[in-house]
């Protein structure tokens, strides 16, 4: 049998974002994986240097759709440290609340994606239906379903009303019950076990050596969590467990994430019962003094690192973002050793990759290749002409209504 190299991306149904992997296979067995990252480089770090802090915050928030709050919080914490701002306690608690709701939304989303990657669309539909509960809560609290925009330098932009607290608690009850069901499903369903156990194995030593973070590291029995080790926001005042697992495979990653969903429910209840009174923000200066700061933040996907340097002007001197996927993607080749082609989607999905996070930073260029471009009008004319010639249908009379 000959070795074949198949292109897995940049455009591939299993990848929700473009990134290129070349997969060499022998029959159905994977021989080697070559990753060529950088496809999604958007120049965000450079772009931040040309924006005011407050504008940069919204740009940073859009590094990633799913963990937008993570990036935004990590960034504002850096800026607040440089400016020496004391963030009010209520703001810290609200940030924690949104962070945990975001974690629940991210993990439920991941559970659905994992189901989809192994062809279990029913799991996808159910988890995403339940995820709507979190999404609705986030939309009511922050004003949007994904890019919450709750952070501002010096605090948060919106307060939480007592009615909203009651609503959150109701939502959390539903979610807790559903999470228990998914935990039960993960232990009962034979098909899930067949497709997940002993797939994408990463032993503890390799996980540590290759620098895995977040649920991937914890599923390989590495006991690390920035929320506990390097507490920020309100985490230092809360009681929660760090979920680890000894399976060291995709199945372990499922169990860790489902376990973290339960912990998030507990954290949210604690935050709501201990929510301090007081202001939600302090006034931040437009000019941030010279200085530098580093924030580590436990995003749903793992440790998110932000470094910001200010130079006394309205714009940052340098912003550096290390998204969790960059740390985890190097472990993927190791995980895929001796696996099947059919396991590639789920193994890659199991690190919960976010390539737009990973490749933040460059200008889109239109050079090099000969390209054919059509604008909307030309495309429409082409379509009308094609249908007239090939199908004998005259579409030009169809009126455009929007």
């Amino acid at each position, binding site marked *: 049998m000959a070795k*074949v190299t*198949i*292109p897995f991306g940049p455009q*591939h*149904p*299993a990848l929700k974002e473009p990134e290129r992997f070349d997969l060499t296979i022998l029959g*159905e067995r994977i021989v080697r994986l070559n990753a060529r990252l950088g496809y999604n480089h958007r120049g965000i770090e450079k772009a931040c240097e040309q924006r005011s802090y407050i504008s940069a915050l919204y740009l940073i928030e859009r590094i990633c759709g799913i963990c937008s709050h993570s990036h935004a919080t990590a960034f504002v914490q850096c800026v607040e440290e440089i400016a020496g701002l004391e963030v009010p306690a209520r703001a810290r608690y609200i940030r924690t609340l949104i962070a945990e709701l975001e974690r629940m939304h991210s993990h439920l989303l991941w559970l659905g994606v994992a*189901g*989809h*990657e*192994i*062809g*279990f*669309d*029913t*799991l996808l*539909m*159910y988890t995403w*239906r339940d995820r709507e509960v979190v999404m609705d809560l986030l939309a009511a609290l922050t004003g949007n379903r994904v890019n919450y925009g709750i952070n501002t330098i010096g605090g948060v932009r919106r307060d939480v009303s007592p009615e909203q607290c009651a609503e959150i608690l109701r939502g959390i009850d539903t979610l807790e019950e559903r999470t228990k069901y998914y935990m039960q499903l993960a232990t009962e369903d034979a*098909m*899930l076990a*067949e*497709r997940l156990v002993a797939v994408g194995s990463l032993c503890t030593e390799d996980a540590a050596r290759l620098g895995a973070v977040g649920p991937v590291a914890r599923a390989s029995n590495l006991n690390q969590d920035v929320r506990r080790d390097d507490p920020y926001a309100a985490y230092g005042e809360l009681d929660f467990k760090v979920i680890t697992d000894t399976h060291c495979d995709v199945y372990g990653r499922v169990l860790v994430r489902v376990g973290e969903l339960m912990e998030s429910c507990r954290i949210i209840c604690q935050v709501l019962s201990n929510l301090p009174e007081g202001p939600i923000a302090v006034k931040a200066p437009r000019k941030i003094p010279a200085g530098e700061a580093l924030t580590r933040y436990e995003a749903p996907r793992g440790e998110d690192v932000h470094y910001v340097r200010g130079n006394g002007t309205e714009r940052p001197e340098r912003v550096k973002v290390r998204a969790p996927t960059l740390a985890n993607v190097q472990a993927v080749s190791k995980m895929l050793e001796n696996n*099947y*082609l*059919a*396991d*590639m*989607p789920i193994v890659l999905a199991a690190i919960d990759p976010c390539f737009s996070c990973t490749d933040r930073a460059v200008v889109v260029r239109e050079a090099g290749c000969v390209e054919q471009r059509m604008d909307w009008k030309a495309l429409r004319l082409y379509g009308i002409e*094609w*249908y007239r010639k*090939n*199908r004998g*249908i005259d579409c030009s009379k169809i009126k455009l209504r929007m």
Partner: protein
Amino acid sequence: MGYALFNILVFPGLLFLSLFGMLAEFADRKIYARLQNRVGPPWYQPEADFIKLLAKEEIVPADADRAVFRFLPVVALTAVVCSSIYIPLWSRSALYSFEGDVIVVLYLLTLPTLTFFLAGWYSNSLFAALGAVRALTQLFAYEVPLFMGILAPAIVASSWSLSGVAQFYGAHPAYWIFNLPGFVVCLVALQGKLERLPFDIPDAETEIVGGTFTEYSGRLLAFFRMTIDVELVVGSALLAAVFFPFGLGLPPVAGFILFLGKVLFIVTLLAVFRTVMARMRIDQMVEFCWKYLSTAALFQVLISLAVKGVILG
């Protein structure tokens, strides 16, 4: 001759089967959606999809064999439509039958899978070729249990003709109870033949993009889609004819409605089956079929032999 042509092209051939196939596809998709707590498609969705595909531009890859590439969908559709005329639908005899037609039907139903393989292979595309190889690998795994499962009732009936089988069970309705294990085996194997979850390995979207049909578009894809719809109906009708031989003596209209009901019942079972399953890996699939499904099918054959030897003497 004219009557035969009418049978093949209009009723119960191409036209009827394609419309019924789309109805079955709708039922399948709607049940799938409702089990997933979704609204699901409206009743005309399969027709709309078909018409849309007909209207689309079809693109033949530059490296593909143009003639074969365009010809294969027609072969696939013809094979499944032809097999339908040997299956007794609502009376005790099929339109055409001869001793041994059950073998012909099974082989005609194998042809689409072979065309899928050729379609993937002649597309000259990496993903399509991978899908083609998987389709063929899978064929060898589910075909054996399916054949044994279908032939077991024929052993009891002492007839290699579907009409003969139907007549036997029409006369001795109680014997169908012995074929239940075979029915379960055939249901699972049919799911494999139709390349549906958990056996949609040849066109696993998240792994090999679209598998065998990666390069197909427009009318050609529409015909393949139609083939799968018709295959769903014909396969279910075959199972209904072999395993549910009740009410075959009813008047035509009532018999016809009963036939539709039987087919839709089997389609429902298939839909529920695919709702609760994840996709298997090809190695797991082959292992499952040989280890468990073939054993069960063999068990059914033993039952049939015992029934024939002991009860029927």
